[in-house]
């Protein structure tokens, strides 16, 4: 089990185009939308053009928790994660799972190339965002399957910096915990990941009693 406290890199992460989620992100209403077959095919084609530029990679590890209070979670390496909502989220956790994915810079390059065409850019952007989210979900499912073999249960819920008062500056700690740079991701001064379509999140891990 100790190996899970080291970093695991998944170089080729399985992903299918989350078509429905992309349409939904773009505001398509299944019942009200008025769209021709040709127009729908055109949008799907652009989605696939964007999807071809998606190369998801991910990394994850487990973290040991040293202390928990109502406001702060302290990891065994001294990192403090301050947020009441986050502390509540991990209240019953035995360990924390931290995962990060990036879909690469392909989408950003496409958007740059078509920067004067907003109707294309917005589709590329939506594909990138949904693929990053889906890829993180898949990384979590793959981790869950692996951990279950060792009687560790990884919860489905995720918690990301920037939400629930967990400051986005926590990304700096995450970048110390995960080799995001190996996935080609860097962090700006204002804690924004570049390429933009990169995601990190925590999840709860519990020991299974057998």
């Amino acid at each position: 089990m100790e190996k899970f406290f080291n970093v695991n890199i998944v170089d080729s992460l399985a992903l299918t185009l989350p078509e429905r989620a992309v349409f939904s992100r773009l505001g398509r209403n299944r019942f009200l939308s008025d769209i021709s077959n040709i127009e729908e095919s055109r949008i799907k084609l652009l989605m696939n053009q964007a999807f071809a530029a998606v190369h998801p990679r991910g990394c994850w590890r487990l973290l040991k928790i040293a202390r928990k209070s109502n406001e702060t979670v302290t990891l065994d390496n001294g990192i403090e994660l301050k947020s009441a909502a986050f502390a509540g989220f991990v209240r019953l956790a035995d360990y924390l799972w931290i995962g990060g994915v990036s879909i690469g810079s392909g989408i950003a390059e496409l958007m740059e190339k078509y920067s004067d065409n907003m109707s294309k850019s917005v589709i590329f952007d939506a594909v990138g965002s949904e693929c990053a989210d889906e890829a993180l979900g898949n990384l979590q499912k793959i981790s869950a399957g692996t951990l279950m073999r060792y009687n560790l249960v990884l919860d489905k819920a995720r918690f990301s910096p920037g939400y629930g008062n967990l400051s986005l500056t926590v990304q700096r700690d995450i970048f110390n915990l995960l080799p995001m740079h190996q996935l080609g991701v860097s962090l700006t001064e204002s804690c924004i990941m570049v390429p933009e379509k990169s995601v990190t999140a925590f999840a709860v891990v519990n020991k299974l009693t057998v």
Partner: protein
Amino acid sequence: MMKRGEFIIFCNRLTVVLDGATGTELIKQGMPAGVCPELWVLEHPESITAVQQAYAASGSHIVYTPTFGGNAVKLAEFGLADRAFEINKKLAEISCAAVHPLGVKVFGDIAPTGKFVEPSGDWAFEDAVNVFKAQAEALAAGGVDGFVIETMMDLQEARAALIAVREVAPEAPVMVTMTFDSSQRTLTGVTPEAALVTLQSLGADAFGCNCSTGPADMTKVIAALAPIAEIPLIAKPNAGLPMLKDGKTVFNMDAKMFANCMDDLFAAGANLVGGCCGTTPEHIAGVTERARVNRHRHIRGCADGIIAGSRKVERLAFDKNFVVIGERINPTGKKALQAELREGSTALALQYALEQTGAGAKILDVNMGMPGVDETALMEKTILQLARAVDVPLCIDSTSPEVVEKALRIYPGRALLNSISLEKERIEKVLPIAAKYGAMLILLPLGDNGLPENCQERIINLHRLFLEVAKYNYARKDVAVDALIMAVSAAPDAGNAALEFIDYCHNNLKVNTVCGLSNISFGLPNRMLVNRTFLTMAMTRGLNMAIANPMNEDFMNSIDAVEALNTHDEKMKNYLAKQSCSAPTAAPAAVADPAQTAYNAVLHGDAALAVKAVKNVLEKGDTAPRKLLDEYLLKAIAEVGGKFEKKQYFLPQLLAGAEALQAAIKELEGALAGDNEDKIKPEKFIIATVKGDIHDIGKNITALMLRNSGFEVIDLGKDVPAEVIVERALKENCRIIGLSALMTTTMTEMSKVIELARERNCQAHFIAGGAVVDEKFAESINAAYASDAMMCVRVARELLQK
């Protein structure tokens, strides 16, 4: 080793009980955390002997070898890849020694590598096959009775493993189980039905699911599979779901609760049952008890032929719904496609695929045959590309056995093969390949002597073909007979001969019939009219599939009408839904009035058509430029906006409309310059993403909509310091500024911009927007709030009227 036939008899005779969790039981036997389980068991053989004998005592008929992580990729994580053969062989031997004396069978366990095979990932398919072959060879050498490929998350990896085992041990029984989550999909979005159809046609002897869910969710999967399964079904659920009890995480089903759920699984159709995570020998003892009192499902199979795409299935029934096989992915006669394919690009093939499925094709014919290209490589590339992009099954269309083999081997579904005839090469080379990969067949009643002249010759050839394909266990439901349509311009009676043959196949043989429709009209004017008319005639005689171009709306409407009239379309639901629908099925073509065309072009977001229409208006000169702008173009964009507000249009449509308008106005600018009407100077609007933030898609959309609404937008870009924004606003004497931020760490920069503006005596209105900004925050920094681009336009107008 068992034979496949023996396994089927074994499964028919009784409800087969499998084992439960192994890892948990090994921990109870003292396996420490963090070790390589396979190596630890090898060093402590008594542990697995105890676990397997406990399962045998609980009633298991089959136990799995402890080789879940025994493939070379997994063993490499522990530096043991070079010992893969030795480890697998010895673990198989230990397992056989443990339970063979008790009359229990041992199946060699093969599980995921953790890598993803193309097209889901980028691991080469043949590399995956080789890894699994090596493990299967070792397990076979260790004396296993059969194989189980389990806990597969990706259908293509399961296919690689199954092909590997089949090539190592063609006569051995192989069970395959995949994991489906509570939405009944694999990690890569494959339905249980698509996985079953693909794997049973590829030679799996039993199929089902294990892990991820408890018995209740698994019962739903088994119930969905039972009506189409031609092989026994397996269920190996977890002991419910993990839950917290007295401060400890445990599975929520004890042995009794678990056993009580088995009745539902048996009723749904499970033939082989065991347990996965959290189950113990006690759980399996409960399963055994329920298995003794429940009758297992009798395997009937499905009356229809079923093929599978990468994620879903298509039923082909001779007397049910008509299926169009899209014909366009074929370079013959298509110069643009030929040029693209020669360049190695499959973009146009993908476009044709999406357009055809959008127009109603249920299967896509893929033909890559043309001179001067590597057809095998091109076919492989296209198939992988299409498998990622479209769900529908593919029809592999090639005359080359090598191309057919490569295509069927790599395709992550069950394909239709076009075609098998009595020609020597097709029978001797292509048919065995098709059978190996389980493809459904199009039978072409063509003899070695060329085209049959009449219906009788076709019938004779067809019966000879039936005898040939029966040698490979093909049932009639697994073929579709090609009616061999020939041009009526060359042979006037060709249509009648084909109709007579279709009638015979449908009524006497009750098989699927298909035709390459466009052949009928070759050499004639108005070919589509002839095609459509002949199709209607053929459908009334029983034709249920056609290889055709679905992009013609009249053609597809004719099919819908026939289906409604012949009652295949129950209560005419499909016909009424399509023909009563207000949504256009195709984008608007140009109409006679170019001003109206310009209107339509903006409404449907077609920038090229909009520019062309404006040019036509200006050339014709019967509509004044100002009138074109005010009464057509601006009215069209207002309708686009209205449709967006009513959610009839969504974002790409709104933006396409806006871009079409911009293109049209640009074309019109010169003409408008000479317009004598008074012009109102546009209001300036400065827009920027604040310092530290690099997200600008929302800001760009807003800028576009503002421009279309008459504002002169000064877009300062992203990551813009407060000083730059304020200085520019003062310089331009701008009355309104829009600020965008997407992150909590950057939204605070907005207040700095506003504070600086006030310090410098800039009195401009501010509008704040972006994912993390809400009305309350905007109010707190003395800015107005806009949740989206359209709202920003509205708010800007309101603020300027103050």
